[in-house]
C-alpha cells in the first residue's frame, strides 16, 4: 500500500467554465471548497438570529464580529474600521476554509501558494493604493523612521523598502507553508497506521495505536493552526493597513 501525502493537494477540474486566452478556466475541487466556505460564512452571518439575548449560533456570529472588530481597533485604531469588511472577509475566508480542510478527504484552499499569494497581494496593493490616496507623497515616510542619524539613514531606508517589498512573500508563504506542512504531517502519520496494519498484520494494527494517537493530537494542533494562521493573516493585514493610515513610525 502506497501513501501519497501530496495527493490531497491535487487540483481536480470538475467542469470547464471557459477560456481566457489559451488558458482553460475550470471549476475545480478548489473552487468547490471556496464556494462552500462562502456559503458557510453566509449561513453563519446571515442565518443567525437577531435576538436581544443571543443563542449559541447567534453568539458565534457576534463573537466573530466583535473579535475581528476589536483586533482592528487595537492594531489600526478607529480609522482602521473602514477596512472592517475587507479584514473580516479575509479572516473568515481563511479561517473557515482552513477548518473545513481539516475534515478528512476535504481540500484545503489555502494550501495552494497561488491562493495565499493572491490574498497577500490584495492586501499589499490595498496598502499602497490607500496609503498614497490618503497621505499623498507623505506615504513615503513609512520608509524613513524618525530619530535615525543621517549617516545610516540610506541603509535603514534600503532595509525598510526591501522589507516592505518582501511583505507579500512572507505574508503568503507563512499561511501556505503552515497549511501544507500540517496536512502533509497529518497524512504521513495517518498513513503509518494503515501501513503498519497491512505490513505487520495483527501486531501492526496494535502498534498502529501510537501513530493514531499522534494523528489525533496533530488534528487538534492543526485546528489551532487553522485558526491561528487566519488570525495572523488578519492581524498582519491590520498592521500593514495601519502603516497606510498612519505613515511615519
Amino acid at each position: 500500500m502506497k501513501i501519497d501525502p501530496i495527493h490531497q493537494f491535487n487540483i481536480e477540474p470538475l467542469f470547464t467554465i471557459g477560456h481566457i486566452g489559451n488558458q482553460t478556466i475550470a471549476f475545480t475541487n478548489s473552487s468547490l471548497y471556496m464556494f462552500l466556505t462562502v456559503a458557510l460564512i453566509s449561513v453563519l452571518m446571515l442565518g443567525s438570529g437577531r435576538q436581544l439575548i443571543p443563542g449559541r449560533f447567534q453568539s458565534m456570529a457576534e463573537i466573530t464580529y466583535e473579535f475581528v472588530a476589536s483586533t482592528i481597533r487595537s492594531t489600526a485604531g478607529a480609522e482602521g474600521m473602514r477596512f472592517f469588511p475587507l479584514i473580516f472577509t479575509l479572516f473568515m475566508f481563511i479561517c473557515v476554509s482552513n477548518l473545513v480542510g481539516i475534515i478528512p478527504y476535504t481540500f484545503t484552499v489555502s494550501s495552494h501558494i497561488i491562493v495565499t499569494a493572491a490574498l497577500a497581494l490584495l492586501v499589499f496593493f490595498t496598502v499602497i493604493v490607500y496609503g498614497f490616496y490618503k497621505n499623498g507623497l507623505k506615504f513615503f515616510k513609512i520608509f524613513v523612521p524618525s530619530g535615525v542619524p543621517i549617516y545610516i539613514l540610506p541603509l535603514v531606508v534600503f532595509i525598510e523598502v526591501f522589507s516592505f517589498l518582501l511583505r507579500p512573500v512572507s505574508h503568503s508563504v507563512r499561511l501556505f507553508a503552515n497549511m501544507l506542512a500540517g496536512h502533509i504531517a497529518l497524512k504521513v502519520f495517518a498513513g503509518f497506521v494503515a501501513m503498519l496494519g497491512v505490513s505487520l498484520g495483527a501486531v501492526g494494527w496494535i502498534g498502529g495505536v501510537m501513530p493514531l494517537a499522534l494523528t489525533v493530537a496533530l488534528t487538534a494542533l492543526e485546528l489551532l493552526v487553522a485558526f491561528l494562521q487566519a488570525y495572523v493573516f488578519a492581524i498582519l493585514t491590520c498592521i500593514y493597513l495601519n502603516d497606510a493610515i498612519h505613515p511615519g513610525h
Partner: protein
Amino acid sequence: MAESHGETKAGAHTEADGGQHGGGFPPFDSSTFASQLVSLVIAFVALYIIVSRFALPRVGGVIEARQNVIEGDLAQAQKLKDESEAALKAYEAELAAARSRAQAIGNEAREKMNAAAEAERKSLEEKLAVRLGDAEKQIAATRTTAMSNVRGIAADAAAAIVQQLTGAAPDGKAVSKAVDASLKG
C-alpha cells in the same frame, strides 16, 4: 485547451499511483493557477459583497440595538435610583420636620404644664401663707391669753404667799405691780 487540464489530471494521477511526486507538486503546478484565481476572485468578491452589504450591518445592527437597550435600561435604572433617592430625601426631610414639630409641641405642652404647676404652687403657697398667718395669730392670741392667765395666777400666788408669811392680805395693786416688774425682769 480543455485537454490540458485533463492531461494534468491524468499526469498527477499517474504520479500518485506510481508513488513518484518529484515533478508534479500540485501547489506549484502553474497550469491550475488561472482556474484557481478565477474561482478565488469570484468567491472572494461574492463574500466581500455579502459581508459588507448584508452580514456586518446585520450583526452590527443587532449588537448596536442590544447596546442601546442596555444603555436605555441602565439610564432607566439610574433614573429610578435617583427618584428613589429623592423620595428617601423627602421622607427624611419630612421625618425631621415632624420630629421638630413634635419637639415644639412637647416643649409647648411642658411649658404650659410648668406654668400651670407654678400658678397652682403659688396659689397653694398663698393659701398656706394665709393659714400660717392665721395660725400664728391664733398662737399669739393664745399665748397672750395664756400669759395674762399666768400673770393672774402669779399675782394670786404672790398674794397668797405674802398672806401666809405676813398674815395680812397685801394690797392688790402693789402685788400686781411687783408681778409685772418680775415678769419684765
